[in-house]
């Protein structure tokens, strides 16, 4: 039987180009997901309201997971400190070393307790200076993206935390509450690129807008004649009803001149990476 060569069979080329159903479904799925995601980015308010029924469940899972990781991390850090502590003390005196070998863990735990006590006492001192109601919260997470700087706190709406409330620590201003879940809240750091607050130079009372730049802050909209120097302390202005007046924000490290406008680079007083507890200030509410 004569069989024509495969390449001469009519319609074969067309059949080769036919898209498989699976590829077509995948392409259609990609298109739908893409349109959905683009729509969600364009209309964030609608997105949040549509997904608000499941937000509580998602928030609970997040809160539980982050608290678990925080607990494991805390235990790990305690272990590391215990190791550091025993190593350091071992170098000092042989006699002390013997005693510490038997009670090394207890000593490290006590050191950790003392550190926590010092931090909490500082927070308490700050709390006493603020006439508004305050909520003490622990930091359990942060923003996974490289662009924004947010902190996840273990207190939420059930504890009286509301959107827009200022957050401070014993070292100074930290940021403000961005969103609130039932038992957690997300705070935006002052150095987040979306953050803008009114602030002034303590020495000369020159007012400007403190804008976040990602890893630091800049005091912007100063004029060339304003008296600002490197080393000047920057405080919150109390305007715009976000922060109470006079909370330390940071110190000027550099001045930048661009024509008539001047901006000051500000090193934040709070090292957010080492921060563990913060106070959420409820402005206008009486002290609890």
């Amino acid at each position, binding site marked *: 039987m004569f069989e024509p060569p495969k390449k001469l069979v009519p319609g074969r080329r067309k059949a080769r180009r036919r898209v498989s159903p699976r590829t077509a479904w995948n392409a259609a799925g990609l298109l739908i*997901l893409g349109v959905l995601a683009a729509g*969600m980015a364009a209309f964030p308010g609608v997105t949040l309201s549509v997904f608000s029924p499941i937000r509580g469940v998602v928030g609970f899972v997040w809160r539980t997971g982050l608290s678990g990781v925080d607990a494991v991390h805390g235990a790990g850090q305690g272990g590391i400190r215990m190791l550091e502590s025993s190593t350091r003390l071992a170098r000092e005196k042989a006699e002390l070393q013997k005693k510490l070998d038997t009670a090394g863990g207890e000593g490290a735990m006590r050191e950790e307790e003392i550190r926590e006590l010092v931090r909490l006492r500082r927070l308490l001192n700050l709390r006493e200076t603020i006439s508004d109601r305050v909520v003490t919260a622990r930091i359990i997470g*942060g923003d*996974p993206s490289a662009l924004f700087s947010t902190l996840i706190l273990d207190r939420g709406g059930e504890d009286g935390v509301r959107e827009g409330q200022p957050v401070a620590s014993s070292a100074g201003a930290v940021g403000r509450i961005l969103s609130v879940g039932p038992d957690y809240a997300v705070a935006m750091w002052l150095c987040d690129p979306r953050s803008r607050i009114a602030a002034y130079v303590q020495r000369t009372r020159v007012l400007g807008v403190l804008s976040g*730049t*990602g890893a630091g802050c800049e005091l912007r909209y100063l004029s060339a004649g304003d008296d600002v120097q490197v080393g000047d302390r920057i405080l919150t202005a109390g305007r715009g009803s976000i922060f109470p007046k006079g909370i330390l924000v940071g110190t000027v490290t550099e001045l930048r001149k661009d024509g008539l406008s001047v901006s000051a680079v500000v090193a934040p007083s709070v090292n957010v990476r080492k921060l563990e507890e913060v106070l959420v200030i409820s402005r206008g509410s009486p002290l609890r």
Partner: protein
Amino acid sequence: MIFLAQAGLFALALIIDASRIIDLPVFGGVHPLLFSAIVVSFAVSSGAFTGGLWGFIGGLSLGLLAGTPQAGALTLGGFLSGSVPVLLRPLVFWRKWTSQVVLGFASVLLFNITIYAVSAIRGETNGFTWIAGFRMASDALLTALVCPLVCAGMSRMERRH
């Protein structure tokens, strides 16, 4: 069963990313995005749609945690980071690991660029800074380094089942 295991690992990666416990003290804290590395491994093994779907879910859950106007941007970023970079695979496939490294880098970069672009269009940021660029690149680089390990782990898990 394998799906549940993968979903569990994915959720754990998201929680570890959000907890920021593996931050390196450079440029104000940089870290690999483990969830993005897992999304890349799904995209490599099962295609762009699967990667995009997992990225969409990851971005959405991060957005719902934040509860901010960034929720949509995070979802779009997650979707694009899971579906688009895998299309580059034929171009960068010299060795298996080279494609995984490039895809990991491209995935995180695309994720961050998308979030930044949406925020910039909406007028929410104070402007782009070099430090933000360094942080984006560092996150992408760290993710690129862990991506082959994550891909190897995930494929081994699939083979066992």
